[in-house]
């Protein structure tokens, strides 16, 4: 048995058991910070949204109680119709964004020199340096009746009458959404293309896979989780961001976000909460389905 006072060989001090410092002992708990953050600032407010949605409405606020009046108000009015329509139009925005954005992402990955790729992607971040409200509002002089698009087309003699459907309609909202959110498909697609191995396009050349087969058999399956993530992001914003239909929409061309905002303006807080709760439930359902289909954890680790 060695005893604790043994000075060991050559008079070296005895080896003491390793004692982690306070900082090291605390560091284990640091891993819980994200959970605390998410509970405090996401889960709790979301839960409160559901709770508030069944409260009784008062003149300027609401009081505890249980009533489904807000839901009744939502489901048995034009709001439901508008909500469903906004989901449909969001899907169109997603589809248009995908058709424009994903080819850009593939192109950047495939054809732009490696060193320049990140710079090209950075270009798509530039619009976000400008406040969204300015960006959307700046579309008005472009899309309106005597705006840039109509003036140009008239001057070129391509149209006789200005196209009025470009703004204050669903079309206007879709244009705004595509211009605002399409970069997210570029980012998501760009990241998703990391899952595509280096020599795969040359293998396709060698095996004789044409552009269509290449897209459906190789690119799409590999990039699916990333594409889905980008699509969900655009869909969520499409039905949730009130700003775009507020500026570019018109009668009937609203989305869930705008319905909630209008409810808040009308001081009907339970209704606003109910709309939010419904929106949230819809999206959670969507994410669940997406996760089951594509395993969304793959977005961050595409090769595994």
């Amino acid at each position: 048995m060695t005893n604790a006072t043994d000075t060991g060989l050559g008079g070296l001090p005895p080896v003491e058991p390793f004692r982690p410092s306070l900082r090291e002992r605390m560091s284990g708990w640091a891993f819980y910070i994200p959970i605390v953050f998410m509970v405090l600032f996401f889960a709790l407010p979301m839960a409160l949204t559901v709770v508030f949605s069944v409260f009784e409405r008062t003149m300027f606020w609401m009081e505890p109680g249980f009533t489904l009046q807000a839901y009744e108000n939502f489901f048995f009015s034009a709001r439901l119709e508008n909500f469903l329509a906004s989901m449909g139009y969001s899907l169109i925005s997603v589809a248009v964004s995908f058709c424009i954005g994903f080819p850009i992402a593939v192109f950047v990955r495939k054809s732009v020199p490696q060193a320049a790729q990140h710079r090209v992607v950075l270009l798509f971040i530039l619009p976000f340096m400008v406040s969204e409200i300015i960006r959307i509002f700046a579309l008005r002089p472009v899309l309106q009746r005597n705006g840039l698009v109509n003036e140009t087309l008239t001057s070129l003699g391509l149209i006789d009458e200005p196209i009025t459907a470009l703004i204050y309609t669903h079309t206007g909202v879709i244009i705004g959404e595509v211009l605002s959110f399409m970069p997210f498909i570029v980012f998501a697609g760009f990241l998703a293309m990391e899952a595509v191995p280096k020599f795969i396009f040359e293998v396709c050349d060698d095996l004789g896979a044409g552009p269509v087969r290449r897209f459906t058999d190789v690119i799409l399956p590999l990039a699916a989780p990333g594409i889905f993530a980008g699509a969900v992001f655009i869909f969520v914003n499409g039905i949730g961001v009130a700003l775009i239909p507020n500026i570019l929409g018109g009668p009937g061309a609203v989305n869930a976000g705008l319905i909630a905002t209008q409810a808040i303006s009308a001081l009907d807080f339970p209704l606003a909460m109910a709309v939010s709760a419904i929106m949230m439930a819809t999206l959670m359902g969507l994410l669940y389905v997406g996760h089951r289909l594509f395993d969304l954890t793959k977005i961050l680790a595409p090769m595994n």
Partner: protein
Amino acid sequence: MNANTPAVQVRQLCKNYGSVQALKGVDLSIAAGEYFVLLGPSGGGKTTLLRTIGGFHKPSSGQVWLNGQEVSHLPPDKRPTSMVFQAYALFPHMTVLGNVGYGLSLAKLPKAEVRDKSVAMLEMVGLSGYENRRPHELSGGQQQRVQLARALVLGRNILLLDEPLAALDAQLRKDMCLELKHLQEKVGITFIHVTHNQEEAMTVADRIALIADGELVEQGAARDIYRTPERRFTASFVGENNLLSGTVAAVEGDTVTVQVCGQALAVDRRDLPVRSGETVALSIRSELVEMVPAEGAAPADGRSLAGTYTESVYLGLTLSHRVALADGTEMVARIVGESDTPEPPAGAAVRVQWKPGALRLHVN
């Protein structure tokens, strides 16, 4: 197609990237059924040559003929070639069987036939039982076998391998080399293999072509390239050669006398066009050089040089003695096997000598 038609004929092939000339007029002929290796340093143009043969690059000028047909305008899938890439070239979302069969299903073969052919090919490369694995579940060596199967199953008769073993560790690379060689003998088609690894090249090749700086430097059987390099570059790249430079003092019949460090060396002329006063290169393999103590006068046979012993490097299989010549040129005398002769002290005067015919002359 005639049985003697070369599988690959490359004529005056040039490839420019902007102002960089990756290939400078390469001429090459590869016989059907040959295992041909393009060997050379990185950036020398060997991969560019392979990819141009495969149709992945368009030549800037020149022609590629495969099986007696001019194919310069054809895309890769319309050529009788298929390619094995360095690594990371499997479809990660498909099973091993799916990867191998993909090319055949693109060719619209019936499903059962695709399956049978793929299974047979996987057996050929030693991957039976791995059909339903995914690429990420395989080792690097297994992934390369899947690539081999995927390329061979197409039934094209020229297989291009672009540094296929570069991503593998040394031991696995050695094993895979032999397997590649045996596989080629079994399937009997032409293999063209690009590598910068000399040992890999010599293991597999029927013939080796040295490619450097966009040019075909020299080609021949591994044995010839190693033993009797024609060009100075070959001597410097293959094996462990001592390179000397000197001035031609006299040319008498078949013997050339070259002044190196003030000493006259005799070397076979090999019908090379040399003139007195010309600067030439000499090469000699280090294992043909013997180091002896400098006792007495040097024999006047033109087969030895005086120098100073500097150090020895023991590598197990070989022991290398390093000797510095008067002008600072370092020569290596390599002994294969064990030697019990004690090494001289550093700085001792020694002599390096060799047998007749060991020294080779190179002119530019």
